[in-house]
């Protein structure tokens, strides 16, 4: 862990929340389990949190808890909440989220679609990135879209990686669930290894201003 940590005691002091609130929020998954970091100290075991994330999150919950119920808040902070996002073609291009080339390729792949839900946006976003970096050509794009669409429901899990590899001119797109080590034979070139979660984050920040009023929404 490189990021600065804060002890539970310090967190409670700085934010003025109580143990009861902290545990209630934890039960409601407003604070992800992975943020509770246990460490042995000279005074026994202590719980630490990633400082910046937790302070921001507690602030956000405190601000919103008067207007929203805890269940609504839980929905808000869940990584799944992106599933409610859906944009029109015009919106997409106006906001410069993806290039027109990527959109057109996507439309060839899935014609007659007016609204694009988040997983389609993510697929386009990834495609756009690969195309603009010159790592992928147009015919390979449909492989990418295939794998992304078929597995879109599983993509929101935290640590998935997208691999794009090529051997003797034949390309393969694959998604690895979790951070696993992959070993290829020598003829294989890994052209791109992309953490999907970081793409989701970037895409969310691009989309966010449209679904205005949620500046605090972030990854978990």
């Amino acid at each position, binding site marked *: 862990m490189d990021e600065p940590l804060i002890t*539970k*005691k310090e967190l409670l*002091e700085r934010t003025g929340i*109580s*143990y*009861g*609130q*902290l*545990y*209630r929020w*934890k*039960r409601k998954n407003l604070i992800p389990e992975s943020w509770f970091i246990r460490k042995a100290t000279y*005074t*026994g*075991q202590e719980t630490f949190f990633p400082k910046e994330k937790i302070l921001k999150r507690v602030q956000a919950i405190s601000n919103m808890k008067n207007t929203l119920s805890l269940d609504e808040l839980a929905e808000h902070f869940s990584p799944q909440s992106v599933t409610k996002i859906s944009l029109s073609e015009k919106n997409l291009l106006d906001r410069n989220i993806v290039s027109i080339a990527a959109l057109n390729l996507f439309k060839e792949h899935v014609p007659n679609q007016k609204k694009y839900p988040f997983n389609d946006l993510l697929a386009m976003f990834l495609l756009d990135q690969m195309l603009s970096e010159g790592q992928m050509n147009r015919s390979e794009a449909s492989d990418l879209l295939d794998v992304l669409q078929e597995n879109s429901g599983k993509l929101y899990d935290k640590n998935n990686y997208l691999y794009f590899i090529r051997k003797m001119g034949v390309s393969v797109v694959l998604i690895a669930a979790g951070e696993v080590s992959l070993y290829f034979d020598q003829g294989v070139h890994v052209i791109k290894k992309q953490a999907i979660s970081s793409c989701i984050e970037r895409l969310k920040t691009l989309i966010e201003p449209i679904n205005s009023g949620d500046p605090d929404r972030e990854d978990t």
Partner: protein
Amino acid sequence: MDAEKNLSLSGNGSVAGGQYNKVQINGSGKVHGDLMCRSIEINGYGRISGAAKAAQVTINGSAVIDQQLSAESVIINGSCKVEGDVHGERIQIDGRTKVLGAMRGDYVRSSGLLSVEKNLESEELAVTGPLKVGGLCSADRIEMGLSGMTSRIKEIGCGTLTVRRQTASTLFASLLGALGKRKLIVDSIEGDDIYLEDTEAKVVRGDRVKIGPGCMIGRVIYRSDYQKDDKAEVQTSLNM
């Protein structure tokens, strides 16, 4: 599978899982696969070799569920073993229940033996029987009455926690009491309002902490208020 169909097993038999309206097992019955229905009632012995999902689950005999049990209301009067997690809004345990996964509910009450290997989470938790939790026991309000055997919990995190000794009211409880000392053993307790009796804990952290008779506490770390009974042992206490 017809969702309106009732399933009733009397005697000895086994049946495939699926969707039903009411499921009743009176003799000894086995359900192969997942079961989804409005109500499950097990009066004899029942085994569900899959997950069970129902609005209402009542177990009067003995039951084994191989995977997750989820229901709005769970009542266990006999004995029950769940190898997965248990999710329910209202969970009432008067018999003996062992959960190998986690338990999550809104209102959990137990007067029997409850053992949860992972976390036990609820909004309200009222326990008068022995309780074992292998992970975090977390609730807004926890009330424990200690009687009979020793309760062991790894960690408690809550708003209000009250642990009181309880005099054995039934023959069963007094027999259990003869087997072991009634007490609560826990690694760490964190809460806003804490009152303890007969509790052994390494660390107690809280806003208002009151240590009652029979306690043996390593360290108490409190914010606004701390009281200690003369019949309690506390090694160190400090204001945070």
